[in-house]
């Protein structure tokens, strides 16, 4: 089992009048950056990095980052910058990027270089996830949405080739052209960092991941549609001639631990206050309907069971109530005593090999997050590891997702002791 920590790194500024329980509502892509305060931003970036260091100390196997643009709910516009910093200031945990938004890069060779450098500086701890990106990201970097899927696939093929084949070579593709590919970097891990694919609604993506034998991570989707989506992966794997297992699945959802039940509930309510991703079910904020219908971004017909409950299908106000989210396990919050059995339920239901606890988000404070991380480290993580062992949930670093075979000595986890 791989246990990771995640936060969107929201831009929290109650003084702006926008965020927090009584703040002005935000509709996607309608908020000008004129309200952005770089002092606030600076403090938040450093705070979120400190929290990641502490998460590693508390025993998390993985520190997960994500990327979004032009929005206050996520400060990860240049996620690779944060990853680079973590590569140097952390020592043991994997740096999991879920993920670089492939289709919005006009020049994916930059990713080849940046990610190889992160992998080297971290001594082989990078997990390089890719995503298709929401409409917001296509608009922010003006990438043609109708070619999103084609660009994704071509960029993936290009990056893998540039990481693994000696240069120089030429690449004259439909969307990307290079006359000379010979970057002066190579990834630390062999053949290259593990790639994961997070998803929410696209059927094309999950089938592609299954065919590539790449672990598929579902993001905060409700339990039953998630299980059905994993089944689609499993069925496609069977067609491909291999058997998928927990090593092929990952799941991210909101889990917060606190000192008392009352405090846990009070803090968990902050998930749905403050800036949050209107694209994901259960969050606040108003989705911009035009972004939901950005032409050709995802197939309108080839969608997953999660589509019915994802916000992508609706415009306008879309949140489920806090109580509903607690009810259906998409928010788990409590003391370790009540949280652990609920996590168990999710693990039994979905059987993922990698899990990411989404915490410290919305309007939560630094103290809120630190208390949770401490309790995770002291009680929850050890208990979850035991449950995972009992349920035989192996991550893609323990069992090879391509073959189903145990990884005896994970070569890509060897951390060469630093010279100093």
């Amino acid at each position, binding site marked *: 089992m791989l246990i990771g920590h995640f936060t969107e790194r929201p831009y929290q500024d109650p003084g702006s009048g926008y965020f927090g329980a009584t703040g002005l509502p935000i509709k996607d892509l309608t908020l000008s950056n004129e309200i952005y305060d770089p002092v606030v931003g600076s403090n938040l970036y450093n705070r979120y990095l400190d929290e990641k260091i502490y998460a590693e100390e508390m025993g998390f196997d993985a520190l997960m980052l994500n990327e979004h643009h032009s929005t206050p709910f996520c400060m990860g516009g240049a996620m690779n910058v944060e990853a680079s910093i973590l590569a140097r200031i952390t020592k043991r945990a994997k740096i999991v990027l879920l993920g670089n938004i492939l289709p919005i890069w006009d020049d994916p060779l930059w990713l080849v270089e940046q990610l190889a450098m992160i992998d080297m500086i971290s001594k082989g701890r990078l997990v390089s996830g890719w995503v298709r990106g929401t409409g917001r990201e296509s*608009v922010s970097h*003006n990438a*043609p*949405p*109708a070619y999103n899927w084609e660009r994704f696939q071509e960029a993936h093929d290009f990056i893998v080739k540039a990481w693994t084949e000696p240069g120089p070579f030429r690449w004259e593709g439909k969307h990307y052209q290079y006359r000379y590919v010979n970057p002066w970097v190579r990834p630390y891990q062999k053949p290259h960092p593990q790639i994961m694919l997070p998803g929410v609604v696209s059927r094309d993506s999950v089938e592609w991941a299954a065919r590539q034998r790449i672990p598929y991570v579902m993001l905060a989707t409700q339990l039953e549609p998630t299980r059905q989506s994993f089944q689609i992966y499993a069925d496609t794997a069977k067609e491909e001639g291999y058997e998928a297992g927990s090593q092929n699945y990952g799941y991210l959802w909101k889990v917060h631990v606190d000192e008392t039940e009352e405090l846990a509930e009070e803090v968990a309510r902050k998930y749905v206050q403050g800036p949050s991703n209107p694209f994901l079910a259960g969050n606040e904020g108003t989705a911009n309907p*035009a972004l939901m219908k950005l*032409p050709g971004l995802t197939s309108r017909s080839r969608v997953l069971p999660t589509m019915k409950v994802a916000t992508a299908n609706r415009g306008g106000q879309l949140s489920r109530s806090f109580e509903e989210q607690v009810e259906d396990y998409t928010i788990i919050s409590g003391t370790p005593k009540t949280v652990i059995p609920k996590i168990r339920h999710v693990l039994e239901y979905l059987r993922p090999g990698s899990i990411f606890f989404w915490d410290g988000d919305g309007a939560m404070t630094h103290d809120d997050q630190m208390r949770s991380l401490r309790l995770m480290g002291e009680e929850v993580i050890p208990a979850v590891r035991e449950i995972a062992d009992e349920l035989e949930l192996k991550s893609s670093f323990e069992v090879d997702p391509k073959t189903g075979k145990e990884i005896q000595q994970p070569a890509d986890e060897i951390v060469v002791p630093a010279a100093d």
Partner: protein
Amino acid sequence: MSQQTVDVKEYKQEVAGSSIQMRTHGSGEPLLILHGELGFPGWMKYHDRLSESYQVYAPSHPGFDNSPGIDWMMQVRDLAGWYLEAIEDIGLDSVNLLGLSFGGWLAAEMAVMDPGLFRKLVLVCPTGIKPEQGEIYDIFLNLAPDYLKESFHDPEGTAEYNLICPSEPTPEKLELWEVAREQSCKLGWKPYMYNPNLKHLLHRLKNLNTLVIWGREDRIVPLDAGRIYEDSVPGSILDVIDGCGHRPEIENPKLFSEKVLSFLD
């Protein structure tokens, strides 16, 4: 969906290695009408009126409505080049060409590539040129019904408005709009709805009679683009209709048709 007062022939036409959904009616010299970014709107009053004097051909471009998309096309100039061969395959000669909005950009590109194929050219609020004043409305950052509403100067006062933009569009209509927006997006995402070089090539139309019609209240493509079209096509005429927005052919079909017929005559 369309208000057909006449017997319009609709069929699938195999052309230039693909096929398109074609509609035709009328008699006389050929008049090829190229629809805009949301696909073929239906057979409207202006189609009726024009088909009284011409054989009107109104296809759905590849990738719009039920015409299959053609994968290699990535810009409007690609589609224009393909259409020239399609015209040959259909067997049309000395074609009168009329293009509306995105279809106007397409028509201009086609004419520039092979002016000798055409008898006269009418561009109706065409995209394709970046205005120096104002900006072209972003149809990809707005929903189709909102865009359509913005296209009309006086929706309530336009007889055929509800045919173009029903208050409760059927699922089929909504899907066709999305199909059209996707294809328009493939060809016109960036630079947005124009080609920076087109205005330099328009000089080639010096021997092709060209009429550019605009609605004075057009909130989609600024009238300034019309001025640049007029400046770039030697001998062309810019005719601005008062009280109309981006859809003069729907907003005032009688006046619109009169102007077109008079010009083509």
